[in-house]
């Protein structure tokens, strides 16, 4: 087979992880001074920056919703974020689709009915890319929204899982993603365990679905713990500054 071996003989993947291992997550809220809420998150080699503005006056009249806030999500990829330089316009269909998935996720989570006739902007900037766009965008947006103090029902944590050689694998990187691996992205509310987003690409045998799904769910919970620790630490620091 000419295919690159994604899982080595010792059960290690091409970046040295085991199958059920997440990439190292490094995150920090309140990184930008101009935004109402912001966050930086690094998951392995994927780096993403999120800024939240609002609730503020809607930019155009057409965007005003009389009973709830309008959520606007925009994702931009830095031209140097991938191995090949591609000038991706903001109207790139693939990016628009991801932005729309993020928007739909947060529409149900944010208590939009509290801010009628206003707009909440979520801007996401991907600085370096190594797979898992949707999951990093959702995680970064969650952190930035919490930092902005926007009322939400719960955290939203997203994680991907795939299936390589009949074995479920957690948190795919770009090499694994681009080898036609079935990839399942799950976003869930960690408190209730409810799923808000589920996306699958490529073919996956129905018998495998359950185990891949479970793996992604466990990944989401792990991510939740990391995010929650960071948020609590941040609030603690804020309180200490107040004293």
């Amino acid at each position, binding site marked *: 087979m000419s295919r690159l071996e994604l899982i080595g003989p010792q059960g290690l993947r091409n970046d040295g992880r085991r199958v059920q291992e997440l990439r190292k997550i490094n995150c920090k809220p309140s990184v930008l001074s101009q935004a109402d809420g912001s966050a930086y998150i690094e998951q392995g080699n994927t780096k993403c920056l999120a800024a939240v503005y609002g609730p503020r006056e809607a930019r155009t009249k057409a965007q005003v919703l009389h009973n709830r806030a309008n959520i606007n999500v925009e994702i931009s990829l830095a*031209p140097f974020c991938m191995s090949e330089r591609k000038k991706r316009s903001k109207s790139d269909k693939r990016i628009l689709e991801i932005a729309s998935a993020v928007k739909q996720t947060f529409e149900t989570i944010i208590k939009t009915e509290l801010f009628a006739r206003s707009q909440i902007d979520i801007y996401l900037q991907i600085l370096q890319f190594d797979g898992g766009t949707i999951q990093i965008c959702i995680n970064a947006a969650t952190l930035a929204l919490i930092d902005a103090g926007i009322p939400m029902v719960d955290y939203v944590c997203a994680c991907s899982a795939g299936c390589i050689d009949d074995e479920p694998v957690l948190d795919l990187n770009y090499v694994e993603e681009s080898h036609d691996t079935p990839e399942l992205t799950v976003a869930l509310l960690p408190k209730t365990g409810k799923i808000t987003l589920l996306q699958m690409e490529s073919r996956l045998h129905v018998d495998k679905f359950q185990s891949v799904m479970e793996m992604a769910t466990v990944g989401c919970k792990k991510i939740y713990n990391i995010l929650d620790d960071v948020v609590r630490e941040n609030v603690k620091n804020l309180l200490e500054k107040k004293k």
Partner: protein
Amino acid sequence: MGKVTNENNVKPNPTITFEAETFRRIQPEEYLRKFVQQHVRPDGRSYNHFRKTTVNLSCITTADGSSMVRIGNTTIVCGIKAEVSEPKLNFPKEGYLVPNIDLSPICSPRFKPGPPSEQAQIISENLNKLLKNPKVIDLETLCIEEGKAAWVLFADIVCVNYDGNIFDACVMALISALADVKLPKAVYEDGLVKATEEKIFALSFIRIPYSISFAMFDGKHLLADPNEMEESIIKSAITIAIDEAGQLCNIWKVGTSCTSEQLRFCISKARERYVDITSIIEKAKQAT
């Protein structure tokens, strides 16, 4: 600072009192003037004080050269990607360099999503001018085969946080990222460009310019390294680009008039600042 009048005053005061923050919002110019009269700026700096500057090199691993520069809260990331392309017809022996800046809405509520704003285009063009005239990089070293193949360097600059004096930050980020670029050795063989695996070849600089900006307030006070709030009020700005020999490379002066003494003062301050910038970048190089 707190309130403008004493809070413990029991008698009802007939005049209206404001919080300092309210005063700043409704009368920004007067607010700045009150500070400047006391020879200090709203963020506590003196006139000639530059904000804390840090540089981080090779922070983006997918780029061929990259840097992150922070001046106060202003944060800029510059990533350079190299591609092989045909040289331009009128310069068959040269590669080329394309700087481009993106001021996305992430960095400030002032910017709207959509095509690049006028300000972004002006900065891109000024960066291009600074690199071309006088020459900063020996573009002939970027040539692989005359008239056939040459390196093209795309310098993409992303503003992450906008807090004034963006041009100085962009120049610092661009120059330090260019110095960080490592390219593979490439050879041209019958219509194909072959490159070595290891990246060894660094760019050769003819000169290293940095820019230093000043804002002029009320026609007489020169404020070094203006932040966003100061920039939005002042009507005049001076940007000076100088190289390592202290020679002037470019000057941009916009807005109301200034005297030649003021200009001379700016140039002498810029030369002092240049030394600081080089030591900051040297330190960053040693750290990587």
